[in-house]
């Protein structure tokens, strides 16, 4: 009843080609942005901002990157965490070599460095497909992680082997390091994530996105449409790694403040993959859903025993998180293989017909 496009006639192709052609969707988006930009910083506590929202947004950004690769182009990657690591280490090197330069510049530049590394590891994708490619990306995962631990130059020969973020400020306000407030850091992440989501949305709705999906759905037919496979796939790798790289840099600089090579291990790659699959392959909105679910679920599992008045050891909670995550993945795959994004669409469809069943 409230969600119905009756009476919204489109008089131009421009209106029909818009990314949100339905007015209610545009209002909804505006509301979400309003909550994100105004309500959360004003009303949210430090825990919500620093431990829920910032990691959620960063993980969602990485998930978008992975979704471009898997969901849109059909190239399975198990090495996303390594590309995040490239972004993080690049940003660390650049910002310690040239501390006077604006940190945002370095965060974006490290995205480009991750992009270059991603293209190199994407080269085999022309010859190998599917699961073979998935395994090949493990080479990137393990090799790069090894580099982070063994190449002293990358972590400035820090005896602890970890990278620690120095303080940086932007227009006189501290954005990284211990003196930066959660709200400032939240705004930095939010602006970057919103801008990059907008760009990703533009890409996937245009020619480039269609080419990617064509390669995903039927690569032979795509070639005969005049789409060249290697450039299309490499572009997907490049864009995907750029997103992962920026997310990695943000993860270390804005969220964690310091990181060891282990932070970019294969488990993070797997978690990102879950986010994409549970959220919905080929859906940007789904990447947010998936990141929310996978990130917030453990927080709830950890908080639940206390809320119920039970005392459960932290190790047990850890194990339960694994069990629940695993069970949920299987559950969601069975209930809706196309992910939360599809559930959302079905929900909207029901809302459109409400109060009638169809």
């Amino acid at each position, binding site marked *: 009843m409230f969600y119905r496009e009756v009476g919204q006639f489109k008089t131009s192709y421009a209106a029909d080609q818009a990314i949100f052609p339905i007015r209610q969707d545009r209002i909804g988006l505006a509301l979400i942005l309003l909550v994100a930009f105004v309500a959360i910083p004003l009303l949210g506590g430090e825990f919500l901002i620093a431990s829920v929202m910032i990691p959620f947004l960063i993980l969602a950004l990485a998930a978008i990157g992975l979704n471009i690769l*898997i969901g849109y182009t059909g190239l*399975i990657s198990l090495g996303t965490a390594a590309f995040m690591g490239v972004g993080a280490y690049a940003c660390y090197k650049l910002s310690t070599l040239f501390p006077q330069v604006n940190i945002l510049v370095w965060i974006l530049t490290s995205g480009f460095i991750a992009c270059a590394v991603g293209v190199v590891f994407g080269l*085999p994708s022309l*010859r*190998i497909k*599917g*699961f*073979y490619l998935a*395994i*090949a990306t*493990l*080479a990137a995962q*393990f*090799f790069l*992680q*090894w580099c982070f*631990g*063994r190449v002293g130059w990358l972590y400035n020969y820090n005896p602890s082997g970890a990278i620690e973020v120095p303080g940086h400020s932007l227009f006189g306000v501290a954005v990284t390091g211990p003196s930066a407030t959660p709200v400032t850091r939240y705004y930095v992440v939010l602006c970057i994530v919103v801008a990059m989501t907008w760009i990703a949305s533009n890409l996937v709705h245009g020619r480039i996105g269609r080419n990617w999906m064509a390669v995903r759905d039927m690569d*032979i037919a795509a070639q005969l449409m005049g789409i060249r496979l290697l450039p299309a796939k490499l572009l997907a790798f490049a864009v995907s790694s750029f997103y992962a790289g920026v997310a990695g840099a943000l993860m270390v600089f804005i969220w964690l403040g310091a990181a060891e090579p282990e932070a970019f291990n*294969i488990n993070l790659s*797997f978690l990102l*993959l*879950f986010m994409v*699959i549970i959220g919905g*392959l080929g859906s940007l909105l789904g990447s947010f859903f998936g990141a929310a679910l996978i990130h917030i679920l453990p927080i709830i599992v950890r908080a639940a025993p206390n809320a119920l008045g039970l005392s459960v050891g932290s*190790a*047990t909670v*850890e*194990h*339960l*998180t*694994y*069990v*629940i*995550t*695993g*069970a*949920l*993945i*299987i559950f969601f*795959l*069975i209930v809706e*293989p196309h992910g939360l994004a599809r559930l959302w669409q079905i929900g909207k469809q029901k809302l459109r017909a409400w109060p009638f069943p169809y």
Partner: protein
Amino acid sequence: MHILYLIFVDPFVQMAGAPDLLVQTLWEGLVGGVLYALIALGFVLIFKASGVFNFAQGIMMVFAALTLVGLYEKGVPAWLALILAIGIMYLLALAVERVVLRPLVNQPDIMLFMATFGLTYLLIGLGEFVFGGNPKEMPVAALGLPKGSLDFKILGGLVSLQKIDIAAAVIASAMVAGLALFFQHTRIGRALRAVADDHQAALSVGISLNQIWVIVWFTAGIVALATGIMWGARSDVSFALQVISLKALPVLILGGFTSVPGAIVGGLIIGIGEKLGEFYWGPLVGGGIESWLAYVLALAFLLFKPEGLFGEKIIERI
């Protein structure tokens, strides 16, 4: 020039200079390779029969071993623990067929692949929840496996072979031979090969897919248990073995996803290759290259032969 010497000449000089060390390294690699091959074997079985890229195969190995050791530590005799562990692998196969495969049949491959990811997490959580997360020691003696080592004075040095490793190699060979006979000469084996060839056609001649899946997953479970015991005897049993189990993946690339001989040959190549690489070339870059060498080798190999050593040649038809 010096660097070229270090890469291309020096390692071979070292090999020739100390042949006993070389033999020892080869042996270590061989045993590692046998175990990789076993994990890959379980994987190939499942892939052939149900078309599922079973990411959980490595975890099944750890889970099976953990069940065995966990029960033993709780006071169950070793032989009973072994039987119970086999029973649990059967229950796992039943559960996987009922809960995962049956509802997801006919979904795209990636969905089933993801489901096995879910299974991986579930098994890790479950195993640690029930038996605790600390590393456990495999009761080698109680299981009747040999301990100690055989030393040979050859090639001007000492080559030391762990008896457990020899046992591993023997058991692995016996298992592969047994499986090959089973598939070639039994009714179930024939049905299984039929399913591997074409699900629809197999269904239409009255083969029960569900039954075959249970059998295959159970077989893979037993292979996993055997691998877990062998591997557990060489190091402790814990989910840290997961990383080792991932090494089965490059083995699959080398051997092809559907070839049992491929899994074995691939396993041996990867096992020996990474030990040699680590021992002779690793020091050049600071060591630890074992963690990625197998993948890079497999990747390089893929570029030249995308279908693997023994895989079926992919012919694209339009």
